[in-house]
């Protein structure tokens, strides 16, 4: 049988598709002209794997698509492909992400700009596959950039941003886009698919420069390093992470200019905060039920709003401090947990409290653990979150030393 290979088609105009978050990411892989992607199935990440395979099968995408024998190999493959100059894509979820951990840690140390998605999934108390952010957050201290998407559109946009920021020579760090399992990976949204021409204007060709592993550029990557070298290596990574903030701002400004999307701030998305006294902050799709609650409760006179954090690493400390200092109280909603942490809170709760610690004027910061394992954040829960945050505003700072579990059966 002769397989007919269709020529790749490009649309000259921006089109619209009804696409899941995973399918939107696959479109981004096509538009970014990725050279190598490595795949291994685990829900919910595998939606990308399937969507990308379909694009290849339909002749719409040309990418070296390698199905690995497990997540560890999967992440090793792209790490090495990246070192020889390939633009790469990879991804996983939950415990699959953890199985790749050795490769994940080393990729950041080697400053290889691997672009990944982490389809957020609970860490498998047997078979759980609903969303939870602890898989992404497990790499928060390793030198990976960590943005979170709210919609399929933002997933596509963030992916294009991801290659641009990660591959920038000032940064050269890997990046993992957080996509909430089910809520984003498996639900379909209307997504604007940009033209190839616009993407080419935004995203330069990948160039590792003198770090390219190639016979014409003889170098050794990753020799054994000992205590004589590791602090300097960590400090280099620290510098790259600091540089990333500025590079994200630049990329965001360019993105807005070329595609006309992306909001006012690259880091924070504010909703009804202008006159708000109390806000909640969180990451990913939990913003959706919270926005519904804000619209409903505002009719009853509550001055409330939402701040959605788009980048967790690098943590936009300056923006977070400036924004959150405006409010009387902030409720931090964690779709994650950190057992035994200060005040038994979530990861984001403690990060935000830490960022605001030295401020003269700072809000009461109260924590909420909600939506674990993919549990829906229903309207009564959203109401409860706002009520407790408003009560904390009245009660004063010590009311913040608490994390409330929302929607948990006693």
């Amino acid at each position: 049988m002769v397989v007919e290979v269709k020529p790749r088609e490009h649309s000259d105009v921006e089109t619209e598709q009804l696409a899941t978050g995973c399918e939107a990411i696959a479109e981004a892989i096509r538009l970014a002209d990725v050279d190598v992607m490595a795949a291994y199935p685990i829900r919910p990440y595998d939606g990308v794997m399937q969507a990308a395979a379909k694009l290849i099968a339909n002749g719409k995408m040309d990418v070296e698509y390698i199905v690995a024998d497990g997540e560890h190999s999967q992440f090793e493959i792209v790490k090495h492909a990246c070192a020889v100059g390939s633009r790469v894509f990879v991804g996983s979820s939950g415990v699959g992400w953890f199985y790749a951990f050795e490769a994940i840690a080393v990729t950041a140390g080697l400053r290889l700009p691997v672009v990944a998605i982490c389809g957020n999934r609970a860490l498998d108390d047997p078979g759980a596959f609903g969303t939870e952010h602890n898989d992404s957050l497990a790499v928060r201290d390793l030198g990976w950039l960590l943005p979170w998407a709210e919609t399929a559109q933002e997933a596509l946009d963030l992916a294009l941003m991801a290659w641009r920021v990660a591959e920038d020579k000032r940064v050269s760090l890997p990046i993992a886009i957080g996509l909430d399992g089910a809520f984003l990976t498996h639900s379909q949204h209307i997504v604007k698919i940009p033209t190839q021409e616009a993407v080419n204007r935004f995203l330069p060709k990948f160039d590792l420069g003198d770090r390219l592993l190639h016979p014409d550029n003889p170098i050794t990557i990753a020799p054994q390093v000992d205590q004589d070298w590791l602090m300097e290596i960590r400090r280099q990574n620290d510098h790259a992470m600091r540089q990333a903030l500025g590079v994200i701002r630049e990329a965001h400004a360019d993105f807005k200019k070329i595609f006309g999307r992306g909001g006012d701030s690259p880091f924070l998305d504010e909703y009804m905060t202008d006159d708000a006294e109390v806000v909640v902050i969180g990451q990913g799709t939990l913003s959706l039920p919270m926005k519904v609650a804000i619209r409903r409760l505002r009719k009853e006179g509550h001055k409330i709003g939402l701040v959605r954090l788009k980048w967790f690493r690098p943590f936009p400390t300056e923006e977070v401090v400036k924004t959150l200092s405006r409010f009387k109280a902030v409720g931090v909603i964690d779709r994650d947990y950190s057992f035994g942490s200060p005040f038994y809170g979530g990861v984001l709760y403690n990060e935000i409290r830490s960022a605001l610690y030295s401020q003269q004027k700072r809000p009461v910061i109260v924590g909420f653990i909600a939506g674990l394992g993919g549990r829906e954040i229903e309207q009564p829960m959203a109401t409860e979150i706002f009520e407790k945050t408003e009560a904390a505003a009245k009660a004063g700072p010590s009311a913040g030393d608490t994390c409330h579990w929302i929607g948990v059966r006693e």
Partner: protein
Amino acid sequence: MAEQDKSISIEVVYRGIFQKTLAQRICRSVVLAARKDGHTGTAFARYGDSPERNGVPAKQFAVVAADEIELEASMAKYEPAVVDVSIAVDDTLVKGVESWAWYGRQPIWKPVRANGWLLVTSEKTPDAVLAQTDKAERPYTLGIVPGGASFAGLWVFKDDHTDYRILGALAKILPQWISLENAKAATNELAKGNESAIASVQAGYDSTAMRPVRVGEGTSGHEVLQFKKPGWTTMRPGIIVEARKPGERNPYYKKYGARTMRPVVNFDTCIKCTMCWLDCPDECFEVTPEGHYEVVYSACIGCGICAQVCPVKDCIVMVDELKFTDNVDKWQMWKQDKPAYNAWFEKMSGVSAAPPPKAARATDAGAAASGGDD
């Protein structure tokens, strides 16, 4: 009270892997003997030496202190920067210590405090050992503990009492920390009542030859190998190092300090078979214009594989490293004056430089084909 009255630090410099167990036994016996004198202490290996590599200089330490507070103060720094006694359990180590890349070549006495001790196990005289030791910058006492380099601890510990003799020598120089009586008492426990072990403590005490070394004594003939490490702003990002260019050798890690014996080559009997060049694990042979293979001594770790694979009897001979005062490659010498070179070869190797008679050659070839002549 001087620092050395509150605690003492002792290091054992040894050949990696081969002498690890020996070094460990020495350090432990120091602490256990001092314990009998009412002191406390700790024994430990330098973490950065692990994984150890064959013959590459490594260190273990013993710290003995008057009390727990002093011990804690000593242990606050993992590797002592200054020691009271350095013990080299292979006399070729006095040529300098290069433990890993960028470490440089450190004089054997580098951490020894002024008026401290350098103990060396050797069958040579103190002056012969001193002649191969870097020129002293501080006064110290060189003590020669009679005996060769003990490789007793390679696979199973076949005790040749090097550890007990060293403990006896330490009892002589540090009686306030290790008395001879308690050195023997500790040895009695360690050796499970073996009386010859206790006799070895006494022998070490009695026979260690002491040679005070003044500033400026020693050799200035060894290569200076010191590096300034780059900082995070000057290092290449991404854990990248330049590959070596063809013909270039690693300037930051030379490894010849791992050598206890070095190969010398009889260029007259060399049949240019390439075996040494092929099998050398450090690629240290260079091809001469005539097609001989000369050893580049700054790259040779003295593993002896070339001498093993050479099919010609006595063409490559392994010789005690301390016999040599330089690290210069030898083909030029042979090229310029063959009789002089052959005389030097015979003097160093102790074997004849003359080609064997034809009949004997045939026998040698047969021996080589059947698996070597060793």
